[in-house]
């Protein structure tokens, strides 16, 4: 069986490339253990090396833009790195996304993807205007069947996740049209609740969209990949579900075809049992029930899904 090759970008202050690579490598190892093959790999590539030989990109099936602080968020999160990608690699990126390949942007990577126009809307300052590191619960909504039916390959068979966030600009906002489109796909959310959440958040968004951006937006309508909700972790530590005031509680977005995933929470930091905040308590409970401790968590499934998309 042939497993995919993963490229993980680095440079200019991105900083989660190693743990992101570790998550893909673990997923590959597990896939290989099942199939007996030793194919596939996760390469960390500095953006300047990719700019120097951009054709390299086409050799990969999965592109990951990891979290970090590219350019120190100096011009607003993700903006300067997105400028760099657009200035030098636009053609190759377009080529990559037009094929049946997968892209994931985590945290700063998500911010970069929205700045590139590969995902709709934008991510702005948290309501408390402070960098915040805590855990959240994310529910993966069932997408309505109208239009594009199937859930994102990244999120297959996942219902909910508990993950850490660590960001200062994670509040999703978008103009009315985009929100309306995203809302349509959240079938089970009552519209009254959504209206309440939206007010103030999006209503006076003024569009001064330059042409290149307009075109990108016209081409896509995204899907809500995941929403903040009150799940295990929020109950455990009595936390407010939505950590940053994100519109529609959006934590993750996918492109219309589901192949591009943007996520503010960090799945790569939550793949091991001992990374979760409640593991010491869970350990006691399991031990007293005579059960072994698990090694991994549900979040690893995101990386396994991506590998399986090509391996199946």
């Amino acid at each position: 069986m042939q497993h995919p090759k993963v490229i993980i970008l680095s440079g200019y202050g991105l900083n989660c490339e190693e743990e992101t690579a570790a998550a893909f490598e673990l997923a590959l190892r597990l896939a290989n253990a099942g199939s007996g093959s030793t194919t596939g790999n996760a390469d960390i590539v500095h953006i300047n090396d990719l700019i120097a030989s951009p054709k390299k990109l086409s050799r990969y099936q999965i592109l990951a833009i990891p979290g970090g602080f590219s350019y120190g968020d100096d011009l607003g999160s993700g903006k300067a790195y997105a400028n760099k990608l657009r200035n030098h690699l636009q053609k190759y990126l377009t080529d990559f996304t037009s094929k049946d390949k997968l892209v994931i942007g985590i945290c700063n990577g998500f911010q970069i993807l929205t700045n590139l126009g590969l995902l709709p809307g934008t991510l702005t300052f948290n309501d408390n205007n402070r960098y915040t590191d805590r855990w959240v619960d994310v529910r993966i909504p069932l997408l309505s069947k109208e239009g594009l039916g199937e859930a994102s390959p990244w999120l297959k068979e996942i219902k909910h996740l508990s993950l850490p966030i660590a960001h200062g600009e994670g509040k999703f906002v978008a103009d009315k049209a985009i929100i309306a489109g995203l809302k349509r796909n959240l079938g089970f959310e009552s519209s009254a609740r959504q209206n309440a959440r939206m007010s103030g958040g999006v209503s006076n968004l003024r569009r001064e969209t330059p042409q290149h951006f307009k075109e990108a937006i016209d081409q896509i309508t995204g899907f809500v990949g995941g929403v903040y909700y009150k799940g295990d972790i929020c109950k455990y530590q009595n936390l407010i579900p939505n950590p940053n005031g994100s519109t529609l509680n959006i934590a993750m977005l996918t492109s219309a075809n589901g192949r591009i995933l943007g996520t503010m929470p960090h799945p790569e930091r939550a793949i091991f049992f001992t990374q979760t905040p409640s593991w010491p308590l869970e350990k006691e409970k399991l031990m007293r029930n005579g059960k072994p401790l698990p090694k991994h968590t549900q979040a690893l499934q995101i990386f396994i899904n991506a590998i399986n998309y090509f391996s199946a």
Partner: protein
Amino acid sequence: MHRIYVTSTIPDARTKVKKQQFTDLGLKHKLGEVYLAECYTIDAKLNKKQLVKACQLLANPLSQLTTHYPLPTTDSFSYAIEIGYLPGVTDNIGHTAKETLADGAKIKFKPEQNVYFSQVFFISFNDPTPSPRFAGYSPSAMGRGSADIQKIATSLYNPLIQRASIKTFSEYQKDGGMDLIVPKVKLTSGSKVSLVDLNVGDEELERLGKLGVADEADKSARYNSSVARPFMGLRRGPLALSLEELKAIRVYFNALKRKPTDIELETLAQTWSEHCKHTIFCDPMDELKNGIYKTYIKAATEAIRKQKGEQDFCVSVFTDNAGGIVFDKDNIIAHKVETHNTPSALDPFGGAITGIVGVNRDALGFGLGAKPVANFFGFCLASPDNKTELYRSKPVGTTSLSAEALAKLDGRQKNGGQWTPLQHNEQKMLSARRIMDGVIAGINSGGNQSGIPTPLGFLYFDDSYRGKPLVFAGTLGLLPKKIGRKKAWEKQAKPGDLIVMVGGRVGVDGIHGATFSSEGLDSHSPATAVQIGDPITQKKFSDAICKEARDLNLYNSITDCGAGGLSSAVGEMAQSSNGCEVNLDKVPLKYPGLQPWQTWVSESQERMILAIPQKKWKKFEKLMKTRDVEATAIGKFTRNGKCVVKYNGKKVLDIDLNFFHNGRPKKQLVTKRSVPIYRRSQTPINGHATELKSLILNLLSSPNITSTEFVNQQYDHEVQGSSVQKPLQGRGKVNSEAAVIRPVLSSQKGVVLSSGLYPHLSDIDPYQMAACSIDSAIRAAVAAGADIDYLALLDNFCWCSPQDPHRLWQLKEAARACFETAVDFGTPFISGKDSMHNDFKGFGSDGKPVKISILPTLLISAVGVIPDIEKTVSLDAKIPGDIIYILGETNNELAGSEFAQMITGVAAASGRQKNGGQWPPLQTGNVPQVNALKNHRLYKSVFNSNQRSLISSAISINRGGLAIALAKKLIGGRLGATVNLANVPGAWQENYEALFSESQGRILVSVDPKKTQEFEKLMTGNTIGKIGKVTDKSELIIKDRADKKILSLNLNQAEKAYKKTFKNY
């Protein structure tokens, strides 16, 4: 020249929060709208197309709007305030903007052209705009606008690094916006090297040491460079060389039959400084011929390593930038904790960020370059409610100089016909709250942007830190044992190797940082010592070095370029090759015009020095280029025993390395114990809180015990995926005193980090203060799962008034305790740092002289390796029915305790007398005594119990004693307990002694009832007490020896008390 404004088109969380902060300042008028525009001033000529492109590059079209200067505004507002940097201050945003414009808009910037960032706040008042109140000496300058707007502006900027200008709406309209200010550095006196005559009288020599080289030629430069150096007169700033040292230098140069150059003198001052050479630790003290460092600290490590024999885990101690111990068969971990106190007093944000990225470079400069894997912070601060106003010079109104004259003296510029329109307050120290906010924000920026987790840190409050806050910053690094066939922890610059400077460029920022730290803080302290870190520049070369160049084996040696700048870093590395020759013309500068001595000693940040074999240089240079890292060969290492620096083809420095490093005359230090002048340590929090429940609630809210969740939550502690035991634990998110991380994700091994300090004991018993600090650090680590036999220590001494023999006596006592306690525990010191001059000398708001010295503070950090992260333990109680044990003895040891601090008021009311204006020492019980041998046995048993997963929760009993440890454990687990004091072992008498004594060597644990038998067996030989049981009720019930209920504490109420102090921070 162009200006681009970026404004938000969506509700802006930043202005919403700012508006609240402004309102909290206590304004007279009701605030209306607050808008924010980010402003980029581009000092270059752009064509129309480029300008449009630039706007696109700088803004997010979905949430922002760009306009060119002037900002068109149809909305009315009351005032506009612009905050920008002063010339020469690191402007990271401007720097990134320049880079992105050059790349995306194809703008070719000349080297001296830059982009400058500033912010404009547009502020409206809801009620009729307050009429401008023209006060001060000039109607067009001072006192512009209402008192409110002055208050707001003052809260927005720090005059040492920033400028603020204010315009009313009508002025803004009339002038067409804010004035166009380009904070470009212009230095005019570039190339001068002067000779300094040392054959002068003692008085003049002393003046030279304290005030620095006379600098007449620099006059014009001073006024053009607005990196102000207030009141320096015509002197360059402290050399901090003593008379004896200057005489030794005179002898050396007289023998050479020449005068030293200014650069030679500056170099020796840096190299010999307290900051770099740790003179007080190294010089002979009383009967200790080898000084306290060799006698007590180093000797402890040597004795322990010898004793451990085969079990010795130390790899590299004291010799390198950090201390290294074995992690596993392939890796070493290195730990270092630094202080950055003096800069943090002046610019808390800049001081703290520079501190954290600086200590990251210590990891990177360990061996052949360790990757930073965890950050640590510690702040010793005055209470944010402390309203004391301090001035470095006499405040305005108490001097005869006009504000204009003061501004001129400071070298501040007229901007468009105005003096920078704010009060002469450069010399006013920031408020306690501003310092606290600033240092917290500095670690936030530095740590988060560098992608290094911050799993551990502390805040500690005492008003003695009002003049000088202590900012501790630590970094743990990970290094493979071998690079190719080389041992990675060893390094050596070889003769012929190129001296390569990597990273940032050199400017006048940070001149005299090293010598400055070797003096107290007063009005002579140079503002150029203030710097702001640039984490992304550092991140770029850090990755390029420790993730690429290192493993390609491209260099022979590496070190951090920190205190003392090139002179220190190159001088140090040159010892291994036995010589160096540097060409200063090659050193890349931020702007032209630096004098040679400035280039050589400047502490401009984000730099490393490497020794690169000539044949590998091309490859290294190319790699750095592709990583957008500037690397420059500035000279080469030699073997002729000399440190030589050339400039313009001429030798400007030529000193024997031996004199350079060993020429400093030693000074015999003498200590003397005097009658201690004790002071009241703290304002009593509640003078009448004698009732048990309210005592506990008050303790939970007291600053040294309360939750600091707001800090931990803004520091990324999950990046790198290494988090195991987190800074906030359990359901109730209680602050932990230890953290466990997993630096290698493919290994089950973990690293335990913790810290301990006990400054409130310093003036009562400095020996036990040090012993308690060590026991506290070790105990916290052991509670979390550390192995007492695989634990190393770091010492950070922060002292005051080292010229005072009593302070030296305290220091000697503390160092002696370090030796004895560490040896008994078998925990070696692997690294340390000292900061001796933590005194503030200045004036109060009444113009009267004030001196504030910190409580002598010893921070002990512990670092240990454990075999299995799954065997670590969190502090929160977990399952109802679990049995609660107290391990260790509880004695009547309340001296210096949080309880004693709190009841000071009670004691005072009950008739204790003020003694000469000072409060006498608190004699509430005895000083805690540390029995390290006994505690070692207990800690080993705890580790053994953890290896069998017998302990379900563990918390070190620390500040606040048993009562607070119980409350924290239960708040953490959101569970209750019933406890009986009858079973608490130890020599306590009264209930309050059992509950609040801070006896050392105690850990509070809970154990599954099915495992108590096995646990008790493993504990044989230790003193433990079975004191209670975890319940599912939200209540802590405590009974006394007579089985009488003495406390019923509602834990919801307790949690509220624990979290209320910093709730709105």
